[in-house]
């Protein structure tokens, strides 16, 4: 499959937290031919089922990548200009002068993130970035036109295309976390050519950036036997402390309290079998990803986290390496293909072993 074309589609669509329709439609289009059944949950997450070949009741693995992106929302109008609030952790320092779309009831309006002219700033303001409260959205329209077309609560997204860099690297908005949605797509694609006995539940979750809400509801509803969440992680660049993971060097597997150690070992073994480099990302406490919500759903779900190294996270030039996406997809598919009836007996801490059988 053409992973770059797929990622371009995913990166360039507009779907901030709570408003994921465009992402859901694009991901459904990609996953439909690769899976047996699809549904939209009450929360708006997309779930695609690829059934395993084992006898019923089959074990279930949930793959979860969030499809929402960070954005803004119109808080009030000030003449011809829009003031904004945040939808997720938008960084006001990295959006000034960049193009946006304001999504109104009559369609999207193009605009730009504006700031005061240098002559309007105090000397201390000239030395610092503007805050989100200080920026405005400029649509190039009159105050009357803005009042007629825009409403408080309309959403705003960054509007920049995917950019090709050297060496199979690409930069763009919403790589967090659509690069990981693309990993799931690559996995589903690879599973077309592999036999697997477990059911695969591919989840494109909503509202991760505002509190992991989509994954929390889906983990409860789907009640998988194990879950692997996927999210972006940090690549080396100035002002980012280690540990970081170079682009193209593999998909880091997280290790820490948020993850089941036996599941961690099992995935690590798969990578070893494939002779695939698998960096380890230490995450001592909260991972800040869907894995955090999934792990404590119901009776507790053995959870793992794979990362895609990303530079400039939460900007419009989030930079990833296509090889990591392909490699992540292959690792997941090979891991899933190796899951058998006995697998859950390995996912234990220590004696006495858990013997209760989970509800299907």
């Amino acid at each position: 499959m053409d992973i770059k074309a797929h990622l371009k589609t995913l990166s360039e669509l507009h779907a901030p937290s709570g408003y994921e329709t465009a992402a859901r439609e694009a991901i459904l289009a990609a996953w439909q031919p690769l899976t047996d059944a699809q549904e939209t949950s009450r929360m708006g997450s997309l779930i695609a089922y690829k059934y395993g070949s084992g006898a019923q009741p089959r074990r279930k693995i949930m793959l979860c990548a969030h499809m929402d992106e960070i954005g803004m929302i119109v808080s009030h109008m000030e003449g011809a200009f829009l003031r904004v609030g945040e939808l997720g952790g938008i960084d006001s320092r990295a959006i000034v002068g960049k193009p946006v779309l304001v999504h109104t009831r009559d369609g999207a309006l193009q605009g730009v993130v504006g700031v005061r002219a240098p002559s309007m700033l105090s000397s201390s303001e000239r030395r610092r970035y503007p805050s989100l409260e200080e920026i405005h959205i400029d649509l190039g329209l009159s105050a009357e036109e803005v009042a007629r077309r825009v409403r408080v609560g309309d959403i705003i997204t960054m509007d920049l295309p995917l950019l090709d860099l050297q060496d199979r690297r690409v930069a763009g908005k919403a790589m967090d976390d659509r690069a990981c949605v693309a990993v799931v797509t690559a996995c589903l694609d690879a599973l077309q050519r592999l036999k697997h006995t477990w059911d695969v539940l591919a989840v494109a979750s909503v509202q991760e950036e505002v509190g992991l809400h989509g994954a929390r509801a889906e983990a409860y509803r789907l009640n998988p036997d194990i879950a692997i969440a996927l999210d972006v992680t940090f690549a080396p660049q100035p002002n980012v402390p280690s540990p970081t993971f170079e682009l193209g060097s593999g998909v880091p597997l997280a290790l820490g309290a948020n993850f089941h150690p036996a599941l961690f070992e099992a995935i690590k073994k798969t990578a070893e079998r494939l002779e695939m480099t698998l960096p380890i990302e230490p995450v001592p406490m909260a991972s800040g990803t869907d894995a955090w919500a999934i792990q404590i759903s119901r009776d507790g779900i053995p959870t793992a986290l794979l990362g895609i190294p990303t530079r400039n996270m939460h900007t419009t030039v989030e930079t990833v390496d296509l090889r990591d996406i392909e490699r992540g997809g292959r690792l997941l598919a090979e891991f899933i293909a190796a899951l058998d009836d006995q697998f859950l007996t390995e996912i234990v801490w220590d004696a006495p072993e858990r013997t209760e059988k989970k509800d299907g």
Partner: protein
Amino acid sequence: MAELLSLRETLKKLSEAIGVSGEERQVRQALLELTKDRLEDVVIDTMGNLTARLKGGQANALRVMLSAPMDEIGLMVSGSENFLSVLPVGRLDMRYVAAARVLIGAQKLNGVVLFAPIHKTYGQDELPEPKSILIDTGGKNSAKVGERVAFVGNYAELSADVVRGKAFQSRAACAVLVRLIEMLAQAPLPLDVYVAFTAQARIYGRGATVAANRLKPQIAFLLDGAECDDLPRPEGDTQLPTVRLGGGTVLRAAEEMGIPDQRLLTYVRNIAESQGLPYQIDISEAYGTENANISQTQTGVPSVSLSVPVRYMSSPNGLVSLADLEHTQRLLHAALTALTPKLLEN
């Protein structure tokens, strides 16, 4: 005969051309292509200025220079390892630099300005020094020291009147001059008109100095951009805006490097009023045009600037009003139409 582009098309073409100060070739070639049929004695001089005489000029008539700057602010590669280090070209506004997209060198290599994630840098609100800018091209050692780096704009028509794009400070002025050349060619005036598309305006206007030295005008009209301040202000800031988008041509009563010729300023202002053309007076001395350069050539050249209002002028995505461009073109045309040597006698 080159295809005659509309004002909108001309502006788009010029805005999207790359011309970082000191390397204006692409803009110069675009301008030459747009205007060459109307020009004679075309010279690309030692500074990189494009100068010419308007065809059909009257040899003994008043010698008038019309100028517009070509160049834009940008960066220059100063080192190349995993990332590129750079130095600024022109006065950068660092608020616009984080996570910017750039094109590097004549090969137009894609790059992005690194910006460390908010997760690791929350609360670090001080603007960095230009020398801390690093560019990622995806590859290693991907550019040569000395190559120019241009910021990428995202040209778009926001409404029937307002367009978004880069380098409008220079290119909106160029677009006005291109259209004016066409207008003057179709109905010549009894003047000897010289045009100069100037290099290096954003680094002290030194191109204009040489252009004026060579063309030796008796009078000069300069086109440029002016920063709008019709923007939301914090509580307590009761200043009224002086330069509004769509508010008409900006005439400068004062500039950083000099006071414009008062006879010319009054003349253009009176023309605007008699013609019913909108204008605004800017007294901010925060930045200047090439007026200082041109007025101080030879034994002094009476000169005045007509500027197009630009919002977010140092941003890769500024806004201009096409009506402002049209009004500026008409105002300068009207000023030329009524121009006589008498203006300079008192």
